[in-house]
């Protein structure tokens, strides 16, 4: 601890111990804790306490009953935990109603346990808890009492403490603790209703993930029992957690999978038009579980379906996902859910009718189902089902009732399915069916691009951009797109009143014209005025748009065009780069300037070869390149950016110049600063820039002068300075202590302030 902080500490401790001087803001305390953690990690905490008796005083002071605020209490408890206090004297606080205090006390108990049972003595620690040191025994007794208690909050507390213990501690003693307490945990399952189901699930998962305990067969038994005792909603997270485990008994996995599939199986059952369709649970869990009824209330039913869909969505891409994966019934179930939501399902059963009424128009379920449907595109299904998938997706895209967020998901899912339907790699045209869908899709897209709702126009454009990126080269797609009015509409959306839409339109125009899909408009009234090229249109956006998003989008498109050798750019890249850099350098948006540097870097790479250890460019090419770079005024832009008031710009520029120096100046050569041209005027200008006087122009720069300046500049030092965050002064512990002392007692104003 530096002396200045040591000087401030006693005053601060006084403030913290004084209930009349409230601390304005929790985050200070959090930061303070972080700092203490860092200090104790760096040196001995014992020394720290010895050197700063004020800390010990603070700890003792808190023990006296008084009106301390719960945040100070929690802070001191956690501080004590950090110092690994020897006494479990704060135990009585564990039942504090404040969540922070309770959780801090819980953590402290765990630390005390760990301290008492770990360390050099561990080898001698018996697995039998009654042989443990007194304080550990006391804690275990306390936990046992809690687990036996009828009061759910106490049970919850104990489960939380155990969860923390098994999650964070990996000593042998944890086995002993589990052996001792697991019967009590299992007994919780005999109660009706099961108390603290969430905490119980957390505990079981924490135990199952612990390498010390997962071999215990009793654990799996308890888990299986829990799965069957809890309601489907409560059991969902446990089931998902079990399925993510690398190894656990197959029977349990099947049972867990069954829990997740159950709601979908119910939907399938309730909406089945005719028997014959394989059920979801038949393959997965046999008849282990009867298809139960869904919860009666709408919100519970929606919640259950959403969480089941979300769990399955996360599970699908995992290597340890259940196998065989019931792809076809899952697809059928998701399609059925989507049909129930948009009212197109006409179930015969009573349960189906109930589902219809509960899910009709439910946006949450629609979103969850569409997300999952998108993920399911990674495995195909029988053609008949794929046809149904496309049909329902089209229904959603066409329906005026689809909310903007649902529509966005529908577009995303459609993209996934269209891409996955691209016929075998290499041949890369769409399947005939997907081709048909595409036609309808483009007519929907056409309408959606005219929607009065900007979110809809935006997601339509995003879809178009993605679709073009992947399919722009395929004849089927090109034909369909060119026959539609979509490209022309996209071009018109460059003038959209909403800046997000303009940005998306820029990206779409960029993609479309990369693939040569932006045909000139055919309507006769435009024929008189010559049509601007996409490049000119985007340049216009870059120079005139009042919002940052579209301009940033233009810069991204331009960088891509330069890299990919887009025809209009490749014609005269120098002119292109010069125009773009000129626009970007004057832009008020720092991200546009960063993008400008990115484009400059791309240009450099084209001239000098890609970034890498592979040495310096050959002298002839180098000279030519430097000439070109001077002509496009890249250096003026780069040097100016070096002193940009926005740090990311300066960093990017620094990287660019370092790259250029590595390419242009062999390291052995770096000392030959003396015999270069006179660069004093340049350096003087740079110094003024650094001082904030950006008005001064740099004037004509010769390649030699550039090299000389590059040699003379300490770019590495600059890079280091820039790497320090701009608020490194404000974030020092000294500043924190000063701030806290200064703001003591000023409570109220910023209580609502969230960090």
């Amino acid at each position, binding site marked *: 601890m530096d002396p200045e902080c040591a000087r401030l500490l006693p005053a601060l401790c006084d403030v913290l111990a004084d209930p009349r001087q409230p601390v304005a803001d929790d985050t200070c305390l959090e930061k303070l804790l972080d700092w203490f953690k860092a200090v104790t990690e760096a040196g001995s905490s014992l020394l720290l306490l010895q050197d700063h008796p004020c800390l010990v005083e603070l700890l003792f002071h808190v023990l006296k009953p008084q009106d301390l605020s719960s945040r100070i209490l929690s802070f001191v408890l956690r501080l004590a935990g950090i110092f690994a206090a020897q006494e479990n004297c704060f135990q009585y606080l564990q039942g504090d109603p404040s969540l922070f205090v309770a959780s801090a006390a819980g953590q402290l108990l765990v630390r005390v346990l760990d301290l008492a049972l770990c360390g050099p003595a561990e080898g001698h620690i018996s697995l039998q808890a009654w042989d443990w040191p007194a304080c550990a025994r006391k804690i275990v007794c306390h936990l046992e009492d809690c687990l036996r208690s009828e009061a759910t909050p106490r049970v919850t507390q104990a489960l939380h403490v155990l969860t923390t213990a098994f999650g964070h501690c990996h000593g042998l003693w944890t086995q002993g603790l589990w052996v001792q307490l697991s019967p009590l945990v299992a007994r919780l399952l005999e109660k009706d209703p099961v108390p603290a189901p969430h905490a119980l699930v957390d505990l079981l998962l924490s135990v199952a993930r612990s390498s010390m305990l997962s071999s215990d067969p009793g654990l799996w038994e308890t888990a299986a029992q829990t799965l069957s005792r809890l309601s489907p909603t409560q059991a969902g997270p446990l089931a998902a957690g079990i399925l993510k485990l690398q190894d656990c008994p197959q029977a349990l996995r099947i049972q867990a999978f069954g829990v997740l599939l159950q709601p979908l199986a119910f939907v399938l059952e309730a909406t089945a038009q005719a028997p014959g369709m394989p059920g979801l649970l038949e393959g997965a869990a046999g008849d282990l579980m009867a298809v139960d009824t869904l919860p009666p209330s709408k919100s519970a039913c929606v919640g259950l379906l959403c969480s089941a869909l979300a769990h399955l969505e996360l599970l699908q891409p995992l290597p340890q996902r259940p196998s065989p994966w019931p792809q076809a019934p899952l697809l059928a179930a998701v399609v059925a859910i989507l049909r129930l939501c948009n*009212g197109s399902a006409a179930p015969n059963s009573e349960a189906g009718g109930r589902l*219809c*009424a509960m899910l009709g128009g439910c946006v949450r379920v629609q979103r969850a189902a569409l997300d999952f449907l998108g993920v399911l595109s990674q495995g195909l299904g029988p053609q008949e089902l794929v046809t149904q998938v496309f049909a329902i997706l089209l229904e959603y895209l066409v*329906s*005026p*009732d689809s909310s903007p967020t649902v529509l966005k998901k529908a577009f995303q899912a459609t993209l996934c399915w269209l891409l996955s339907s691209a016929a075998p790699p290499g041949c890369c045209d769409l399947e005939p069916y997907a081709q048909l869908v595409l036609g309808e899709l483009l007519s929907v897209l056409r*309408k*959606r691009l*005219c929607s009065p709702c900007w979110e809809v126009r935006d997601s339509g454009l995003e879809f178009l951009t993605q679709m073009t990126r992947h399919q722009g080269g395929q004849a089927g797609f090109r034909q369909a797109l060119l026959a539609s009015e979509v490209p022309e509409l996209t071009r018109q959306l460059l003038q959209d009143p909403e800046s997000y839409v303009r940005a998306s339109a820029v990206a779409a125009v960029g993609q479309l014209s990369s693939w040569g899909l932006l045909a000139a408009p055919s309507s006769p009234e435009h024929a008189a005025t010559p049509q601007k090229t996409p490049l000119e249109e985007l340049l216009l956006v870059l120079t005139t748009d009042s919002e940052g998003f579209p301009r940033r989008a233009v810069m991204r498109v331009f960088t891509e065009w330069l890299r990919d050798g887009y025809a209009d750019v490749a014609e005269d890249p120098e002119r292109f780069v010069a125009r773009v850099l000129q626009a970007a350098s004057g832009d008020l948006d720092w991200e546009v300037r960063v993008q400008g540097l990115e484009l400059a870097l791309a240009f450099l790479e084209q001239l000098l070869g890609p970034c890498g250890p592979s040495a310096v460019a050959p002298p002839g090419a180098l000279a030519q390149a430097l000439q070109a770079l001077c002509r496009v005024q890249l250096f003026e832009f780069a040097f100016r950016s070096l002193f940009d008031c926005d740090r990311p710009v300066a960093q990017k520029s620094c990287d660019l110049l370092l790259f250029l120096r590595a390419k242009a100046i062999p390291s052995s050569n770096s000392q030959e600063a003396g015999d270069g041209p006179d660069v004093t005027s340049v350096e003087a200008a740079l110094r003024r820039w650094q001082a904030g006087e950006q008005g001064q122009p740099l004037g004509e720069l010769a390649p030699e002068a550039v090299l000389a300046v590059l040699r003379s500049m300490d770019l590495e030092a600059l890079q280091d300075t820039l790497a320090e965050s701009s608020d490194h002064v404000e974030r020092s512990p000294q500043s924190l202590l000063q701030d806290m002392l200064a703001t003591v007692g000023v409570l109220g104003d910023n209580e609502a302030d969230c960090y």
Partner: protein
Amino acid sequence: MKLYCLSGHPTLPCNVLKFKSTTIMLDCGLDMTSTLNFLPLPLVQSPRLSNLPGWSLKDGNAFLDKELKECSGHVFVDSVPEFCLPETELIDLSTVDVILISNYHCMMALPYITEHTGFTGTVYATEPTVQIGRLLMEELVNFIERVPKAQSASLWKNKDIQRLLPSPLKDAVEVSTWRRCYTMQEVNSALSKIQLVGYSQKIELFGAVQVTPLSSGYALGSSNWIIQSHYEKVSYVSGSSLLTTHPQPMDQASLKNSDVLILTGLTQIPTANPDSMVGEFCSNLALTVRNGGNVLVPCYPSGVIYDLLECLYQYIDSAGLSSIPFYFISPVANSSLEFSQIFAEWLCHNKQTKVYLPEPPFPHAELIQTNKLKHYPSIHGDFSNDFRQPCVVFTGHPSLRFGDVVHFMELWGKSSLNTVIFTEPDFSYLEALAPYQPLAMKCIYCPIDTRLNFIQVSKLLKEVQPLHVVCPEQYTQPPPAQSHRMDLMVDCQPPAMSYRRAEVLALPFKRRYEKIEIMPELADSLVPMEIKPGISLATVSAVLHTKDNKHVLQPPPRPTQPTGGKKRKRASDDIPDCKVLKPLLSGSIPVDQFVQTLEKHGFSDIKVEDTAKGHIVLLQEAETLIQIEEDSTHIICDDDEVLRVRLRDLVLKFLQKF
């Protein structure tokens, strides 16, 4: 209390409520879907329509070919369009005391009722309802009268002939009662019978009931009605909306504690969300115009069009449509646009505050100022000079059977570049389009109906908790096309009572109380006696005076003093000259104690028998029987008056007198 259901149309209701001594008609909607069976009335001679082939029977008999024409497989009546009136035979309409109008769409049958049934009562409606209703009627009359039709078909209505016709003519109901449109004179006369009312205003009907209009949130001046007496309350909910559109929001709180809630006028398209439909409307409009096509919007001259214009006001610039002209063509276009701006007190809060800025509440004022929206009384005259394509035309009538819209259908129907967008939910768009087939024009159906949907209804009913709900039968089952959608029906406990056309419903509650006033001097003379804590009784001798359904108890008249006598008045003279009243008795007789008392007074050999209604006490020795029941006691003995009086007095000891 009875409800006579004169219209089966759930959104164009016409019901008569008999409540206490009043006869109240609730709305008089006119079902205009009958006009769909007729050929359109073209403003400009249409060779296509006039050359349609006549229709002949299967056997080749062509005697109807003058009356019926065939177009693309559908048969239409070639005659002046006729409307299906509310039932006029179910109840003598001359006995109707008042007509309550809830919104301007629900008064279109008013002239038929007020001018042709002997009606002599009063009609109540809010000012915007009357003014806009007048515009709708004026437009209707104008549309029909300006295209005089020489022939009037009636042969096909003959029951025996109608049976032979193809659907839907064959199934049309009550064609014999269909009537031609009224005249402007009848409209004026009908409207002169209307008395204007304001929201929450209490209107006494003959002292018997009080009626109050409440804001219903559906249209300018639209109302629901409360009909209540001192002890009964009936709510009449007609077209209502909970969405934030231009009218004042719906007043739900005042509907609470109703004995009966009559529920009509729900959305006709329960599955279409108005917001989505407006979005759909805008997208399709933009797409068409961008392609150089024209957009035709068949609509009423008031209502949703205000909201559409407001949406377009926000949309056209963003969609790059600023240069596209919008035309609003109706004989009442100008009045409608101007009326909307002056009914500030009837508008939603947002629009009301604009008036104080001062700004016009609706942005269509600005559209007109900037020449983006132009309005014309008809396609003739100025319009033909200004007409520029591509354009967007708003015009009536939504049935596509008369009005300027007929001309545009004929003009634009042949090109697939053009689009007709249906926004009014009252007519099936496929039926509306039938006489224009084959049609190249694109057709988009975006019905915008802001009235309550079933989810909102179920929330409303939970909130206001009426004892009974009465609604058209269509609302008590899912729509026929979506029979599995159990959510698309009124769901309440006890289940709603349903009605259909020409049905009389006895409403399920009985009146149990009536309020009677007591004059102060009479009240002064009463001597109440507490018979149990909180309940006092007093006998009243008075004259019940009933006038205008108000009941008043007045002191009885004094006996006429003998004239001439100068005798000093004595106190006893003040006592009214009526029979000395026997005191009233209350209480019950405890049999055991009564028997003990009898024994104490020397009766022996007493036997008690329990009966279904009470007890019989037998005094065997005295050959006497005392029959004690809940509300009577009889002493039966043979001619022994002394014994009877003795026993009577013993019985009376157990009872209270006053």
